[in-house]
């Protein structure tokens, strides 16, 4: 049973406006498809500008899509009218990267957490307070914090408040938009553990957007790697991390700094910068920076489609022969959410 099914999602931003000439559109998301099952985490991984954040926001209709479909619990999200969308929003929530701008500084913690309850009239009177208390405890915070203001709390605590706020409406699905990137190492660990526990206890599904593969490994059941608005590789976390097939995935894996000086590893250092999403290269978007020994002129002409190769799906003409440099891959693993 699929919880969420996204097909050919496209989000282009048109530059320019009423008084300015418009340039080429920024193709933030350029044809993304995936599925998500209940109680599953799909990690969307990539570097800045790859469009991963846009995917999350567009699915939730915080931005309107340019084209494509998203079917959530059997409902076509993009066809919903406003009142129906509002009701559906209860089932799908989001937590943000920046703990310092994700909470209204003029609202108490309790009011922030209770907002969803009030909007959807899930409880009234004293019951609201009881729910807020229960939620704060569930995320590991002292219920007494409800009367305080966000500026009194640390980044990690604010993230927890944001999680409590999202949980208040009892969602089935949460978009986690880089939820730990702005946190210190030990705080990051606390929040990751919390997310794993919540998934296990509530059966939540996550679309976990991140750039750090080691972090992703803690929670992800499946991984999709994005580059310039498209998914270039997809598969189970185990398969993608153990034996990646797309040269970008390999480069990404080799670049992740690892706290293990003893491990020998060949680093693939990509040349050049990521091209602008408003001017993607013709053919394979990765070809100007690609290090694959079999890269040829076909790559600059013909855009490769995602196809199953080995244990994953990869969008590369020569995915069968992608070399695996020393020390890269063989990582594997499954999400800690599966571990009781």
């Amino acid at each position: 049973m699929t919880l969420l099914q996204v097909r050919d999602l496209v989000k282009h931003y048109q530059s320019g406006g009423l008084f300015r000439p418009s340039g080429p559109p920024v193709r933030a998301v350029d044809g993304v498809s995936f599925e998500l099952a209940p109680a599953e985490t799909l990690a969307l991984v990539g570097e800045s500008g790859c469009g991963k954040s846009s995917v999350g926001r567009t699915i939730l209709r915080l931005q309107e899509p340019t084209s494509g479909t998203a079917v959530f619990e059997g409902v076509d999200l993009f066809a919903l009218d406003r009142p129906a969308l509002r009701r559906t929003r209860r089932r799908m929530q989001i937590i943000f990267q920046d703990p310092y701008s994700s909470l209204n500084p003029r609202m108490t913690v309790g009011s922030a957490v209770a907002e969803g309850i009030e909007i959807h009239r899930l409880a009234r009177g004293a019951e609201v307070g009881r729910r807020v208390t229960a939620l704060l405890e569930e995320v590991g915070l002292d219920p007494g914090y409800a009367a305080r203001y966000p500026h009194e709390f640390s980044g990690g605590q604010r993230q927890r408040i944001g999680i409590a706020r999202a949980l208040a409406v009892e969602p089935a699905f949460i978009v986690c938009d880089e939820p730990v990137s702005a946190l210190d190492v030990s705080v990051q660990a606390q929040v990751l553990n919390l997310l794993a526990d919540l998934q296990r206890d509530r059966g939540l599904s996550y679309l976990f957007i991140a750039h750090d593969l080691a972090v992703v490994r803690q929670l992800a059941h499946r991984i999709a790697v994005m580059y310039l608005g498209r998914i270039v590789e997809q598969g189970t976390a185990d398969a993608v991390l153990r034996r990646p097939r797309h040269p970008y995935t390999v480069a990404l894996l080799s670049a992740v700094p690892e706290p293990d000086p003893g491990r020998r590893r060949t680093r693939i250092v990509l040349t050049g910068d990521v091209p602008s999403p408003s001017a993607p290269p013709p053919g394979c978007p990765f070809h100007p920076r690609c290090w694959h020994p079999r890269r040829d002129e076909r790559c600059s002409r013909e855009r490769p489609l995602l196809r199953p190769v080995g244990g994953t799906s990869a969008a590369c003409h020569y995915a069968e022969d992608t070399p695996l440099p020393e020390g890269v891959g063989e990582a594997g693993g499954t999400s800690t959410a599966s571990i009781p």
Partner: protein
Amino acid sequence: MSRVLEVENLRVSFPAEGGHRVHAVDGVSFTLDRGEMLALVGESGCGKSLTSLALLRLVPGPGRIDPGGAIRLGDIDVLHLEGEPLRRIRGKRIGMIFQDPMTSLNPVFTVGDQISEGVRAHLPVSKREARDRALHLLQEVGIPDPVARLDAYPHQLSGGMRQRVMIAIALSAEPEILVADEPTTALDVTVQAQILEVLDRLRASHGMAVLLITHDLGIVAGRADRVAVMYAGQIVEEAPTPALFARPSHPYTQGLFASVPRLHGPVERLKPIGGSVPPPSAWPSGCRFRPRCPKAFDKCGAMPPLLPLEPAHRMRCWLAETERS
């Protein structure tokens, strides 16, 4: 003489409520040799950035460096310099690059102008010569198409490029020491690798010593020669990199290692350090890590000094007395 920097008992204090001062950096000492990379590792609030700013006497606002310490470059003590002699140290003997390349470059001047400015601040050369040097520096930091880039403005460059430009500016007077404060934190992982590569090359070719400030243990593992871990304004453990990673000994260091997610090995539930970093106003007397330490015992009520464990490996913990090999 291979020792380029000697920092002794550095203390930086800030005024706090109630009139007294808190020491955000509290008695930090370390050395740096030619061509060596020392990593200063810690989480936010540990005082690592302030330490790096203090080296150049750039501590902001109401903060000040307390007397009683020393920052020695050869036989000059930076803490005793003022005015022109101090300005000559900055850039010429110690260079610095910062975390956010977007705000560290002046948006209204071209890249070439800014590098040339750095050159001419310290070397008596003409504009033409400065520009040539700027070009040379851009090549050294690996910027593609450097001739065109000289006339580019910062907003026309990507984050990785801007960071390289910052390195070029920092190098313009050929300093012996480069202080890099979280130079790659704001960059993508693939770009991060490029920048670290540039730093390695420069160490090899110029014999430049690097003080790398970071919170990322992964970056440290691959590159630094030695590591110093900071917590609550103090160094709590220092060792050559292989030793630190093989045998993290201070409970805080161990806690850090247990909370970092890994790319290899079995996927396990992370073990974060309980509690959170206390602000300076809430520092306990005695060992500052005590409230969060799983191995605390009575002696921890007294502040431990840095005690030796193995050759060149020390930690600020009473357990060193029993664990010494």
